């Protein structure tokens, strides 16, 4: 079910509260399709915290922010338009805080993500079912939150379009793996000041946002009743600049992030197959991002809109 990976996505809201683009992208990373006229509705809570961050490539702590915690509640829907075409929509409410210093956290509704996932081709092989899938989607901010308040912004305000290719394999013995690659176009953003310093002094309220890319892997056991998988993702900003020594982060920093994690779910038959899922994720490498530990819990439920 698609929302199991909504998790990995949401965790990426962490770090500097950045990478909302990947969140949307990743909710659509799942290899599995809803059948026609089936709806999957989900609600998720995510918690992500770091007390070390990469200032450029230097891993450090900062006594004036302590531990930065980003939390979110996300609502999502995934609907089977046909057996081969699914539509996903989701939006989170995000709030941030720093444990030390005086800087105020931010809160608000972040970005709306919409996506379509299409099963391009599926065939039998390697003792299981292989499929190649394509995902297309985009995101746009739902509110006028402040992007230029890092590391406590709830998002980056950029509008995105993303395209993804997925290779998915499910064996008859329920072993599964998935590999995907994503390219995300990001629109420039406007901030509240008329000039800012990157590697130059720029006189504009417009900030050039480099595009982003992601590689994603997951693999493990998946059955209808339960599943457990390992995940790994590498997110890259294709450009941008490093935070200078003792400077503040900025929306167009060169933000990279590598995470590994574990996901698991169980469907309770006595609750109408209500699915409970959870995920834990650790950042292992990064640049201009927090080295965060994140976890998510979620509940999802199928609703059948077929007449029979």
């Amino acid at each position: 079910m698609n929302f199991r990976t909504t998790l990995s996505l949401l965790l990426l809201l962490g770090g500097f509260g950045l990478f909302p683009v990947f969140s949307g992208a990743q909710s659509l990373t799942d290899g599995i399709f809803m059948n026609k006229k089936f709806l999957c509705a989900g609600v998720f809570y995510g918690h992500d915290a770091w007390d070390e961050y990469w200032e450029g490539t230097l891993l450090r702590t900062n006594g004036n922010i302590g531990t930065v915690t980003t939390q979110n509640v996300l609502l999502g829907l995934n609907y089977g338009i046909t057996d081969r075409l699914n539509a996903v929509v989701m939006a989170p409410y995000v709030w941030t805080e720093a444990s030390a210093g005086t800087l105020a956290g931010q809160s608000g509704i972040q970005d709306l993500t919409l996506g379509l996932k299409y099963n391009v081709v599926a065939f039998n092989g390697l003792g299981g079912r292989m499929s190649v899938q394509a995902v297309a989607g985009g995101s746009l901010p739902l509110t006028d939150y402040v992007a230029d308040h890092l590391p406590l912004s709830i998002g980056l305000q950029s509008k995105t379009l993303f395209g993804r290719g997925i290779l998915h394999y499910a064996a008859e013995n329920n072993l599964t793996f998935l590999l995907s690659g994503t390219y995300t176009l990001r629109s420039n953003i406007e901030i509240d000041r008329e000039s800012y310093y990157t590697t130059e002094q720029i006189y504009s309220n417009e900030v050039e946002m480099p595009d982003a890319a992601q590689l994603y892997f997951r693999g493990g056991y998946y059955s209808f009743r339960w599943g457990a998988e390992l995940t790994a993702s590498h997110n890259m900003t294709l450009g941008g600049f490093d935070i200078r020594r003792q400077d503040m982060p900025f929306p167009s920093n060169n933000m990279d992030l590598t995470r590994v994690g574990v996901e698991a779910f169980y469907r309770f038959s006595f609750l109408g197959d209500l699915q409970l899922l959870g995920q834990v994720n650790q950042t292992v490498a990064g640049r201009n991002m927090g080295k965060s530990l994140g976890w998510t819990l979620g509940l999802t439920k199928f609703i059948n809109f077929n007449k029979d």
Partner: protein
Amino acid sequence: MKKHILSLLAFSVLFFIFSACDKEVTGEYAELQPLSPANQDLNAGAWKTVVLATPDEVAVPAPSDVNSAEYQAEVAASKQALAGLTDEQKEIIRYWSAGSVLRWNEIMRYLVAKHNLAPAPNADGTYPVPDASNPFSYPEFPFANPPYSARAYAYASVAQFDALVAGWHFKSLYNRPAPYNVDATIEPYHVVKTSLPTYPLEDAVVAGAAFTMLRALFPADTAFINEKVNEAAWYKQWAGAAVASDVTAGLNLGKSVAAKVLNRAKSDGMKNAIGSKAIQDSLQQRVEALGETSWKSLESPNRLGMLVQFGKVKPWLFDPANIEAVRPAAPPSTQSDAFKAQLEEVKREADPSDREKMRIVHFWADGTGTYTPPGHWNVFAFEEIYNAGQSEVRAARNFALLNMAMMDAAIACWEAKYHYMVPRPSQMDPSIKTLTGLPNFPAYTSGHSTFSAAGATVLGHLFPSKAATFNAWAEEASLSRLYGGIHYRMDCEAGLLCGQVIGGFAVDRARTDGAE
């Protein structure tokens, strides 16, 4: 199935259209037209200088006659340069022809933003101190915080102004015309022809002043500054608008005048401005002995307050012996109900859910990694000076008036801060969260308010049709600190008043300096 392929195709098309959009954000420098002043201020050689006693304090030798072989050879060399202009030279000429004073002001703001980063703490919780004699090793010298940068803008502007007054004096004295007024066949590249004598060349005068002053203020950027000096000094010679001796005389004059201004800088008290833990402790003990809660650093690890002794730096526009006349009135006791009311107001006003307040806070923050509040007011001055098409010498005069006022504003404000040692709102009530970085120095009075009122007062005098706008901006800049949760309203109001007084000193000077 076909439908789906179509929608995928449609998405692909959309994707490529989106990606083809030109995302590049430029704006490293303003796109400006070539300078063509309506008024050349030919009498500026008689204007009142700041550091120089007389405009001819530095001698400039008499130039060769326009009919001499020596001069004709120089003209020929300039014509040759003009005929062989490279694309790079053309770009340099288009950049500088907007006016040297404007461009150096822009460059100054870049240097300040580049260096406006506090040193990161050492592993043992101490802080390294930037060292002017070892500027390249971390932390790079300087830490261009607001007082440092206010002073830097002031010295750079004053050096340019005094050098240009001297330059104008010698221009009038020797009255050697531009080469295109000697040889009518010369059509300069992208430089507007004027009747202003070119010996010594104004752009070279300013470049010479910048050479001496900026290398002292930003020693880690010597190579960059040298490159800019070379471009600024010589572009008019390449463009057919000056000859080599105009340039060299200008450079020499600018450097020599700036050396005199630099002597003032070396003895203005800045080298002691950083203060010490012992001095800060004694200031804290003084107010605690009066039964007050003293300001303390909320930074972690604990950091010495920013420029504890900057209030003792020598001002331009008032006698430091009269500092008490400039010093804002004492704030209410930290133990009083009046103070408590101020604190409660901060708690109400600092509201991260109020988007308009957040905009105001961020618009005026000018914090870490920026050109600072004095830089922001230089941007406003830059726009007005450009729009008015002022001569180089008038532009320099107006920047000097503005920046002397803002440096003095910094002195008066810092003197008050460390005299009264008023704690920040978050120290008195840790539940107060700030919408911008909490500055590491006492609250009373607000630096933004003092800078802004001084800036608005000077600019309002120089550009009276916009005086109301400048005052409104100063008010908003001031309130941004209350909204940000880092200042009480009393800090803002007292800062505005003090800034107006100091701005008034600059206005008094402006009225009597011979330029009005």
